[in-house]
């Protein structure tokens, strides 16, 4: 009976593991990474966003599931001494721009309106797929914002701002439309903790690089490039993420310990009260990676025989015998004798009508109405 009990226990354990396997919360991962600053001296914000992009791509989220918004171009900026590169470490050790980056919103397209439209999904119908956040109620979304911010707001491109209330409302809209399963919000700006103070939707976890009243500081300048390359919080976050691989079991408690005050000078904060699971049981790869659960089967499947494409051209050589010609690139004679474009006829507008009425009125005033019958 001991062996029976052990056997039962063994199958029970297996069953719970299998149960856990099939009852996990999310089926797909999305990431929205936004850099909100313009101008060359804000190089570090672009480098921040690109380093998170790099980690997220390395851990498995494909480009089609990443919405990357960069407010200015640093890589091919004329002031960049090494074009097509964005470095995160001084002495140009790590190029976070890479060779196969795909930026979805760039330059002037990064506005508060576009950001909120991406989050809530209310985009014009002609928006291409790569610019949409097509998440569903089983998606885990990572949102990363960086730039210049203050107590309760984040500045977009030096001309507009988003407030923490707007952000909280956007997340509530997403929750009501079932656009996420769980959401991790990371912000690296000055007084970043103020941005997540107002959240009220469930299943949100937030991290910020500094508390209200504190500034987030930048890390190291590079003398060849001439600007600061990264912010402290994201620099240590990148170092932490470089250790993570798709099968790692690191959880959120490790993420909360990234960049303590001794390293960061500001105090990073986090908020987990809206999150239903215990942060210790949430894996880093639940948000940063795209770990798919694979079911292995040993059954054989019969493939149907391939469909043959229909033979399309059947003796069409007889139809067109006359040869086609290329168009003349600069037909001078034709251009000179080109008829002017037929303009649509518009009825005369008020000014012309008024002018003619005035002329007629003056005429009849001067010459008297009795001449009218001679004219008509």
């Amino acid at each position: 009976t001991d062996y029976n009990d052990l056997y039962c226990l063994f199958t029970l354990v297996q069953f719970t593991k299998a149960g856990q396997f099939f009852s996990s919360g999310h089926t797909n991962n999305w990431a929205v990474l936004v850099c909100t600053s313009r101008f060359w001296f804000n190089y570090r914000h672009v480098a921040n966003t690109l380093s998170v992009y790099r980690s997220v791509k390395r851990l498995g989220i494909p480009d089609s599931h990443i919405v990357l918004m960069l407010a200015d171009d640093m890589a091919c900026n004329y002031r960049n001494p090494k074009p097509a590169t964005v470095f995160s470490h001084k002495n140009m050790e790590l190029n976070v721009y890479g060779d196969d980056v795909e930026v979805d919103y760039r330059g002037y397209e990064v506005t508060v309106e576009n950001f909120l439209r991406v989050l809530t999904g209310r985009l014009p119908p002609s928006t291409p797929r790569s610019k949409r956040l097509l998440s569903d109620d089983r998606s885990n979304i990572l949102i990363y914002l960086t730039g210049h911010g203050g107590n309760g707001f984040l500045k977009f491109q030096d001309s507009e701002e988003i407030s923490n209330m707007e952000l909280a409302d956007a997340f509530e809209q997403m929750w009501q439309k079932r656009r996420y399963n769980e959401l991790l919000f990371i912000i690296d700006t000055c007084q970043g903790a103020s941005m997540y103070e107002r959240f009220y939707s469930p299943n949100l976890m937030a991290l910020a690089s500094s508390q209200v009243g504190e500034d987030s500081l930048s890390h190291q300048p590079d003398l060849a490039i001439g600007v600061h390359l990264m912010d402290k919080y994201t620099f240590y976050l990148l170092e932490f993420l470089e250790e993570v691989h798709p099968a790692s079991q690191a959880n959120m408690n490790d993420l909360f310990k990234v960049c303590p005050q001794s390293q960061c000078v500001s105090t990073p904060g986090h908020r987990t009260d809206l999150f239903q699971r215990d942060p210790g049981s949430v894996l880093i790869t639940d948000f940063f990676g795209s770990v798919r659960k694979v079911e292995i089967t040993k059954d054989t499947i019969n493939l149907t025989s391939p469909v043959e494409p229909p033979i399309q051209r059947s003796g069409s050589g007889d139809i067109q015998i006359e040869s086609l010609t290329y168009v003349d690139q600069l037909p001078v004679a034709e251009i000179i004798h080109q008829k002017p474009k037929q303009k649509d006829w518009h009825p005369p507008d008020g000014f012309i009508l008024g002018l003619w009425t005035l002329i007629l009125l003056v005429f009849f005033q001067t010459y008297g109405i009795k001449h009218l019958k001679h004219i008509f």
Partner: protein
Amino acid sequence: LDSRLPLVDRSDGTKDSESFTAAAARDQFQEELVIRPLHSGDIYASFQFRTLWDIDFLQERQKVSHYRLFPKSLGQVLSKFSVRELHISFTQGFWRTMQWGQPFIPSPPGAELWVWFHDTVSDVDGNWKELTNVLSGIFCASLNFIDLTNTVQPSASFKPLGLGNATDHRFLRYATLPREIVCTENLTPWKKLLPCGSKAGLSVLLKSEKLFHSSFHSQAVHIRPVCQDEQCTSKAWELRQTLNVVFDLYTSSQGKKEWSLFKMFSRTLTEACPLATSSKIYVDITDNPELFELNPVTPLLSQAVVLGDRRTYSVFDLTRAETFGQLCSLNLLLRWKGDSGMNVFDGCDMLRPLLHAERYVAGFGLQTGEIHTVIYNNHPYRAFPVLLMDSVPWYLQLYIHTLTVTSKSRDNKPSYIHYQPAKDRHRPHLLEMLIQLPPHSMTEVTVQFERALLKWTEYTPDPNHGFYVGSSVVSALVPSMVAMNTNFTQDQPLFSSFVPVKEESSYFVRVYTEPLLVNLPTPDFSMPYNVICLTCTVVAVGYGSFYNLLTRTFQVDEPSLPLEKRLANLIRRIRGVPLLA
């Protein structure tokens, strides 16, 4: 290539490959790279990748669903929007015609998109708007900023480069975004459209770190219907992806006049693209013995007449294994000899471009200005007409009554003028003129403008940078010194078969001028905040003091009572009895 077709085992045991032959071998892919050393020591490399496909997207009854070499994303775009021709280019830098000659495929700085729609389209503007959005997703560029305020319909320029007869310019749309930046994020989807991606063939050389560290970089996609064969009885769709890059002597080569594939692209070639029917490198060796030496030398030579000039090329055929030699890799080396490269102009008239244009803004202040376009005809004795197309945004209000065209300090009346005035916030100005350029002369076109005041929401986040005005386009049939080849052959090199040649004595060329950067009167956006602060401070300090002076009264304060008297007052207050002093 036929041996690579899949053989299908049918269930009745017969192998059948004929049914696939009809469908599979109807598209072919060719790639080529042309390297032309320039006299200043720079080097010009031009990649062309061409996919030719015998299919007609525009026939409704045939739904195309099987894509092989032709990229599916572009095929779906063509059929959905009934596109007859599509030309899109992304350029970083400006092509210096006087120093580098004429490019094989010209392009203006920024992004340029021009499209001919099929004449069955009823709503061209709607199709155009959706097309720009779809292309902005495909190429990761902000092409969605193209709207009616920067789109024009040229009436005589930009005739279709492909097959066709009727050209009603209602179906043509042209737009340019001079501010558009080109970077790796545009190169990545462009490379993904190639059949071999960036894994094999010439496309392995496309490394972004080297390509963008250059004086000029331009990548383009051209789709048009072409003749399928010499008889030209049926159409085929041609997709050309071109990439032109000019590497600068000082930034890429540290001042040493020695170029190699490894130095230019940071790698060598190891194989041709297996899907390509032809994969060739052409090196322009017309100036070979005096100027530079080429290593490895190849016996294959080819002569081609391109841009009115007969040039000799050394051909390296990558589909042959012996091109790669013992080391299985091909690295071309061009070494300049002695001091012969020090003179920028050898005085050879062949190199001097016959048509050249410049443009600049004159005037001072933020109210008015003048646009000057200068066109040079460097031919010693022939005059020829050019078509100048100018598209100016609505916020530079042109005064066409001040338009002057002068050649050799005499008035030159254009034989054709098409002007469409701008509508504020709806349409830009369009000015097209056919001007006859006298031989060996400079023609100047000037027009005055006034700057408009934009609404405060219409300014970009960095308005002090200025506003861009797109390049002017000068199209001309330039008389050629050498007879051009009007025959269409299948094995013509790609760089000489881009523009269709109709007559032998002239070749078609398009020259783009510089874009202009104009400062508009910019309001001080911090003004409302500053005014509110100042006003409130003045009001608080001034009015507050005045109010106090007028209404404040002073009262004598009694000294405070000892404790027992205060307690007694408290009890008295409760009782309602008058208080002690």
